[in-house]
């Protein structure tokens, strides 16, 4: 095999970070710096590979690889200081390096079976990281739940691979995508195969009701949460974007993705407003964001999905790693925002802001972009609703218009800036029915109404009940937890130090 093909093979990013495994003993600092340099080296290798292949090649893959490697690098640098003095630092570094390697393999894998294998490795490494403190029972329970759900997802994905192999005669992703583009997927087997793949992805992307583990991983050090929420849980989105021609040809998969995504978006979005601790709130927001990502993929908004992947990864990594600043933020911001309490006026202002904002975004879209797809309505709605609070003005406060514009315009400009950049990277799918877009708008609009009601302190009779349900996560996770424990016991190491001693003496007395 010529040297160049080895250097260009996706194996390089997929194996290089794992070389940190070679440092097994001695000063942890050496292990940390090895991992640091290996991750940097891998990023360099990815860049070089990209250059060698020619810049004209689709930049999606190198972009995603660089994203994952960047996150891994941030996590390694952070953890090196953060975990000083902790035991088992070597093991931690090894697992982070393994996760990075395997995540690169998921992104770069040329074949579905390799992709699945790499994804399993990511999941297993993550599972061990979640149990960094093995004596913590909640950590074990969360890891255990994640273990079961992930295996279920992988099973579905594997079945999908088998079916597609039968239909297409190959597991090469490029080949399957080409076939799907050429012929569409007429047979039921094709459709079933894609559906199985999508179910697998959904299971591994923490969609309700199997989302519980994602919220309960605060039992591992902060950087592990950051890695999981920023770099691992959204691998499903990357896989879907890689398989976009398959999705475009499978209406059933689209509907499934949008339906699941919308439910998760709505429920997790509502729950996140009731959380009482910073990290758990961030986790529920991740869950909602993953729902959004799935829905975007289902709608064929692949550009937005990629933008979302990048933005969310960086944002969430940042949010978790700086979650210790919550008190500083509290000191700075507490009591600063006092909102008017005239409900009717305020609600009307919110409604007007929503309409105005959507109209502005629509106008900008029409002015800047040619061609028109139904799905772009979904994008317009998302942006319009998101930026609406900036335009919220009461008739009496028209003098604040400049302030409103300084809040609105830069965000809009930024959004379109990203949009134009990504336009060169990949194309959106098409051919989604209008009702799918309508379905997608339901959670968005509901959340907008709800956030308006909450922030204006409107108290309607039904709201307290919904709040209570939301506070309990809509009771979705409890049955799953119980089932997970009952079906397959978690292995518990060590014991709780505060456990009241129900010693042999008592037991004897009972007998």
């Amino acid at each position, binding site marked *: 095999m010529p040297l160049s093909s080895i250097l260009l093979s996706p194996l390089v990013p997929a194996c290089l970070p794992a070389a940190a495994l070679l440092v097994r003993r001695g000063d942890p600092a050496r292990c940390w710096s090895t991992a640091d340099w290996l991750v940097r080296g891998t990023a360099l290798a990815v860049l070089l590979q990209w250059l060698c292949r020619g810049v004209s090649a689709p930049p999606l893959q190198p972009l995603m690889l660089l994203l994952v490697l*960047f996150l891994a690098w*941030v996590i390694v*640098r*952070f953890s090196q*200081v*953060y*975990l*000083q*003095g902790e*035991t088992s630092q070597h093991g931690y570094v090894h697992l982070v390096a393994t996760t990075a390697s395997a995540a690169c393999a998921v992104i770069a894998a040329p074949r579905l079976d390799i992709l699945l294998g790499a994804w399993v490795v990511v999941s297993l490494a993550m599972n061990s990281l979640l149990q960094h403190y093995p004596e913590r029972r*909640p*950590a074990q329970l969360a890891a255990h739940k994640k273990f079961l759900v992930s295996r279920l997802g992988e099973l579905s994905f594997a079945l999908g691979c088998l079916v597609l192999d039968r239909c297409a005669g190959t597991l090469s992703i490029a080949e399957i995508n080409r076939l799907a583009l050429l012929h569409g997927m007429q047979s039921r087997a094709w459709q079933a195969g894609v559906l199985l793949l999508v179910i697998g992805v959904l299971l591994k992307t923490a969609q309700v009701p199997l989302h519980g583990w994602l919220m*309960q991983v605060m*039992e591992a050090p*902060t950087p592990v949460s950051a890695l999981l929420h920023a770099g691992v849980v959204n691998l499903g989105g990357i896989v879907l974007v890689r398989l976009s021609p398959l999705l475009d040809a499978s209406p059933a998969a689209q509907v499934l993705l949008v339906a699941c995504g919308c439910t998760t978006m709505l429920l997790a979005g509502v729950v*996140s*407003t009731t959380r*009482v*601790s*910073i*990290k758990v*709130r961030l986790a529920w927001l991740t869950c*909602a964001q993953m729902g959004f990502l799935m829905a975007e993929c289902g709608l064929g908004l692949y550009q937005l999905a990629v933008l979302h992947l*990048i*933005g*969310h990864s*960086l944002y969430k990594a*940042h949010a978790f790693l*700086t979650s*210790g*600043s919550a*008190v*500083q933020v509290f000191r700075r*911001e*507490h009591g*600063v925002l006092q909102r008017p309490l005239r409900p009717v006026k305020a609600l009307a202002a919110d409604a007007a802001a929503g309409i105005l904002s959507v109209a502005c975004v629509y106008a900008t879209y029409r002015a800047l972009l040619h061609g028109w797809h139904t799905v772009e309505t979904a994008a317009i709605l*998302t942006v319009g*609703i*998101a*930026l609406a*609070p900036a335009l919220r003005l009461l008739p009496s406060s028209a003098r604040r218009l400049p302030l409103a514009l300084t809040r609105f315009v830069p*965000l809009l400009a930024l*959004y379109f800036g990203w949009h134009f950049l990504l336009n060169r990277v990949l194309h959106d799918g098409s051919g989604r029915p209008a009702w799918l877009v309508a379905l997608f708008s339901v959670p968005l609009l509901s959340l907008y109404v709800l*956030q308006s009601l909450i922030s204006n302190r409107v108290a309607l009779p039904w709201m*307290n009940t919904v*709040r*209570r349900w939301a*506070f309990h996560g809509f*009771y979705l*996770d409890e049955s799953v937890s*119980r089932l997970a*424990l*009952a079906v397959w016991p978690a292995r*518990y190491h060590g014991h709780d*130090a*505060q*456990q*009241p*001693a129900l010693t042999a003496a008592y037991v004897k*007395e009972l007998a």
Partner: protein
Amino acid sequence: MISLTCMDVATFSDTTEAAREACARIAPAWPLDRSIAVNPYWKLRTRSFAQVAQEMHRFAGSRMAMPLSFYKTLWASGAIARADLQSAMRESGNVFSMPDLLASLNAAETGCSPLPLLSDALDLGRDPEHQVLWREHITTQISQCCASFFDEVQADWRPDGEASLYRYWRATVSEDRGASLLMGDERWRRRAALLPENPDALLEEAVKQFALSPDQVLPWFVTALYRVSGWAAWCAYLEWQARLAAEEKPCFQRDLLAIRVAWEVLLVDGDTSLRSSLSTWQLQWHSAMNTPRSPEVRMAEVWQRAQELAYARQLFEALSGPPLPKGTTPRLQAVFCIDVRSEVLRRHLERRSPECQTLGFAGFFGVPMAYRAAGAETAVPHLPGLFASAYTAKESTGSELGDAQHHASARQQAQQTAWRSWHMRQPASSFNLVETEGPLKLATLLKCSLSGKWMANDGARPDASATLTLHAPLAERIGIAGRFLRATGLSSGMAPTVLVVGHGSETTNNPMAAALDCGACGGQTGLPNARVLCALLNDGEVREGLRKDGINVPEATVFVPALHNTTVDRVTVHPGKGVAWNEQDAAYCVSLLEEACAGAREERAARFPGAVDRASALHKARRRSSDWAEVRPEWGLADNASLIVGRRDHTRGLHLQGRSFLHEYDAALDSDGSMLAQILGGPMIVTNWINMQYFASCVDPHRFGSGNKTLHNVVGGHIGVFEGNGGDLRIGLARQSVHDGTAWRHTPLRLIVVIYAEKQRIESALQTQPMAMDLVNGRWLHVYAASNTGFEHVYPGTKLMAVTRKSPSA
């Protein structure tokens, strides 16, 4: 042999009274943004240390000494001498012999467990591998319920104003379908709807249902309340604040107790047979009540005392060394906080210049104020938690218009950032904002990862154009200034420059930051207090008033506020505008401080791993203070061990290793003993709180320590932290604050208080300070009267620790 089974527990026939008694045991825990050290045993101070150790063991399963392996290391290294152990043995009444104690070092550790509750008995029947345990579930449920009840900032969607915690919980639990799903039990939810609406009625009913004899009620309540002691401490804080503000006292603790007890009631399944869970529990309860503490636990307490005696011995030796002679007329006097971190810097200052004198005083400098920063909505108390603030200090530019502008611009800036984070949080907005703004975080992540720097700690740098004015009547301002000068002995012989040095830490991304700030200033930096005091003392009107009171402040004397940044060990002076500070004096002062800080920094850097020289010490300290991933930015007050009350002449130049609080006191100027009484009732209690917080965070880390910092999860914006997903609210210091990963960095000791005054005077001063008296009588600290002949223990049953003085110099 002492009987260990008999508990000195009063018998309560009245359930309400028992509930009150149980709640009265819990010390408050301040929120994170105002976090001050609290003695978690404060409410138990009227009992003796030994008795509380027994009770904590019984009710909470907690220890009040380290595991024996800790003392084994100390014994092996010779840190505890045979004589120390013998003295400790004698003090404990010779219950254990020397061979017993030595043998115990190799004994296996025995676990501690609290008295069992019904939920524990039920857990015995549950399979922990297949089922969630009741005690886990109950703690989680109560904790989440309390968090949502008390939270005011984290959740955007909060419950509507229900005033009673108990009623809120009752409404929550009876509708909680999730818990029945999780626990696989439906029956208790139906019973929840039948619980009494009144918490007192519930407690009454519970006692009846569990058929508790009157003497069992209090232990049962206390045990139940300790299961949620974190939230109990938060409730106690709210009640404490209400008391300081003279408002009607809420009954949050009673409600919390009722909630925990209600869970026990819910779990009674109505089965009355012999094999029912209730009778199982009754057996367990009585058996546990009659089980004495294991000898290992009690021996660990003897070892703990031996360790304290060993430190006392070393301290007395150090104090008997010849102090540096007092310099001639001072050019600079610097008043520091009594904080142990000041000791190091003061020593370095005095060593470098004989023209510099240093003094120690409680870091709020006697100004009972709340501070309102420019643009801030509320004033933050800057004084010890024991007291309520009397006055507000506000930043002022001198003109009303200027103030209004200043305030408005600061407020607008704050509003803009607050709006952005509010916008980001909104569920419908977050989807797109993450896409739009997320990629920009690349730059921040890159910067933080390369340099480690995150945002700077705000509030440390005052606006040079503003002065801080105290809104208090003139007589009171004169009073504050006069009391300060008399208590520090500065009423005569003032130097041309008097520095008033407050202290604060500089850390980032650290929810526990306030714990490193000045405890005497309510967990804030001491600079505003220093600025207020200096502004008072530089004020002509106040000086005139002082002259009438007999204190003559020389015309040339300038009071200059300064801030000691304890993380980096750097002192910045903030003379403020319009202060005529002689340039030469200023230059002398600044260069001296620079040198002394470098020395102090180098000394303190040695407590971190890795070799350091002077240059790298600064670099490393700066990195620690600004690194977003740093969990040990500084060691804070770790290893604090003693309070020395006396003139600096006694301790000048002595190496006290940054373990001593130093307070100025001159018995010759205190004819009626009132100053000493104030010190005993103020600074001594504050130092006891600090000392006991560190003590408890080491010996009882699960209850009074907040666990692993890498798992901390801030609750309600500032209320406290969870360790991980949930569980009880965690209070106290994190493990990282007292342990470096391989060894303890704090040695848990009860405070040794050395007072340079006659024993009789100390005893009579104690008579006027009941709280201080409790601490001494209960042996929560050990007071020694220092004289030329040695150090005399102030305690009923005194003995003399004779240490011959080595040639005290003039």
